[in-house]
């Protein structure tokens, strides 16, 4: 993005025409397009978006009679908005084309300047394509690892939000706020999984382990609403806080790529929670079975964390070989 911006600004400086701003903004907007698949598909998408944008801008900007312009705008907007709604993965390309068309229809120019504007859009497209090709080997290599880290970060945040549902007293009264937050975090995790699935076999084992972690988290997350008396969580608030802190620390170890994962502290905190369960929750909780299942899920969480596929993928020495 930075390289694209610097190149576009340099081109703006050297070309120094009245329409060069279109070059910069085409480059900036097209740099966001990602097909999430291979380089060829990505380049195709960027190229056709730039080309169609340049053509429609040229047509709309050549000072058409108002009725003709209105028809042109209507037809293109209809098509672009239908594509963006029907095929959400093409939302950005359709939006860029439509947006440029709307702007050009408001800024009619004489033939020379209008051609200059379309050429600027094509040049901006060229800059994005150039840097996509140059940076592809680097981005391809590190993409899998970056995606794994991003997934872990999202799982960590989801875990924090799950524990905040247990620990915050206002959870029953502010239900929608907490549920929306969880919905967003789950959405982010699933989006990361969807991207990981495009990375091929090199991350399959790791994705499976991460998916297992996610399933386990969903398992203990449901206790937030299954426990009908929310004040029960106050009885084990300190233990829950300690567990949440240690789980956070373990996620941090994974994100930082520690060679050896240390879950001893987390296991110790879980043992403390178990003792608390035996002495307090087992007697006072309305449904002690829920907390027993909570312990089971946390144990499964630790076991999954220690699977070889997961630890190997995150260690600094274990780069996924794509």
């Amino acid at each position: 993005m930075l390289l694209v911006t610097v190149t576009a600004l340099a081109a703006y400086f050297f070309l120094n025409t009245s329409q060069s701003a279109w070059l910069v903004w085409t480059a900036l907007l097209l740099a966001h397009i990602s097909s999430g698949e291979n380089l060829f598909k990505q380049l195709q998408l960027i190229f056709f978006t730039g080309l169609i944008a340049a053509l429609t801008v040229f047509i709309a900007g050549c000072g058409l009679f108002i009725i003709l312009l209105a028809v042109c705008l209507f037809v293109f907007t209809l098509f672009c908005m239908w594509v963006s709604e029907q095929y959400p993965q093409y939302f950005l390309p359709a939006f860029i084309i439509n947006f440029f068309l709307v702007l050009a229809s408001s800024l009619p120019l004489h033939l020379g300047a209008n051609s200059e504007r379309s050429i600027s859009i094509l040049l901006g497209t060229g800059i994005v394509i150039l840097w996509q090709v140059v940076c592809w080997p680097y981005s391809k290599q590190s993409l899998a690892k970056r995606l794994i880290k991003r997934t872990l970060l999202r799982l960590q945040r989801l875990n924090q939000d799950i524990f905040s549902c247990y620990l915050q007293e206002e959870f029953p009264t502010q239900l929608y706020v907490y549920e929306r937050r969880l919905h967003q975090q789950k959405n982010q995790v699933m989006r990361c999984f969807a991207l990981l699935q495009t990375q091929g076999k090199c991350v399959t084992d790791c994705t499976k382990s991460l998916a297992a972690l996610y399933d386990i988290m969903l398992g203990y997350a449901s206790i937030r609403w299954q426990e009908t008396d929310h004040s029960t969580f106050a009885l084990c608030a300190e233990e829950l806080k300690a567990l949440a802190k240690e789980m956070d620390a373990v996620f941090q170890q994974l994100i930082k790529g520690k060679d050896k994962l240390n879950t001893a502290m987390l296991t110790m905190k879980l043992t403390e929670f178990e003792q608390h369960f035996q002495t307090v929750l087992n007697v006072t909780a309305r449904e002690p079975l829920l907390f027993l299942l909570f312990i089971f899920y946390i144990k499964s969480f630790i076991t999954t964390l220690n699977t070889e596929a997961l630890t190997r993928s995150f260690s600094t020495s274990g780069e996924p070989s794509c």
Partner: protein
Amino acid sequence: MLTLTYSQKYALRIAITVTVVLIINYYFAFTEQGIMVATGFLVSQTTKGTSFRQGGFFLLTIVAALFVFSLLAVFFIERPLQLQAALAFIFIISSLLAWKSSPTFNKAQLRLLIFSILLWIVCLFPVHHYSVMQNQLIDLALGAGIAILGKHLIFPVKLGDEFRHDVTPVLRAVADYSTALINVFLTPHQDPNALTQKRENIEKILLSSSNNFPEWVYEVGFNPGLRSGFRFFLIHVERLTELYLSLDYLTAYHLDTVSLYDLIPLLVTTLKENQALLQEIIEYLEKKKITTTSAHLVEDILALETALKQITPTSLDLFDLSPDYLVLTAFAHTQKAIREILLQLGKALPV
């Protein structure tokens, strides 16, 4: 009679709105510029049921962009390269925020980029005098007003129908997953990828970018009259998906088959009953009528619990020694929770 899908209505609505704004801009605009059209186009990009709130947000952002640009212009008007660099810098910062919020671009991300995009629009329609800015503000308000009106007058969205339409795919995906789960118990040697595919299908639908999940119900400013009912239903649907996805881990657990043997028929009965209830809810959402009524609402769950009690340790302490029983207990408990959710969803349906 020609029936249009939501995507077609959506596209037609925006196309008509933008065309109307273009014509009004041509004949009645206070400035010679076309900022009204750009405003109309951007304000029409609001989600379902939130046009006033989000439209107002877009309008305020445009006004803010106008003022910020005026300030920037004081410093950079004679230095266009620096001006473009400053605008690009603001754009990169908002891109980073958008990327942090989600790695793939969707409609929600647009709101994070909107300010910097608007700065560029304002840069294309520069202000040289206070009176021009005043006229621009009037044009902006007109453009936004027409877009909001268009949203309410052209193919107005029937939120109830849209909600039903959007929530059905996820329930159908869950029902498919449930069928695959039943098959896992009935035919243990079947293709393990069958369940994974069904699971991925649920996840795909849940993703907001797929447009198949009524995420718009969560948007700030959503219709206050419908908000609580729709959100109640949606939260329960999400809890249902959480429970089904958590079963994935339990299903993959390698159990001692002997202990499981007696429970298989009971587990399958419960799974089937849950699926039947789910199917009834889907049928209601699609056809607005209840086709059948499940006779067994709790009996199968009670039978499962009783059978489980007979084979699992009586003391909770002993569970620790036998993780297999914990997995079974978790499975049975999840089935019970699914039943509770389904019954609550069933009760929430308007008769």
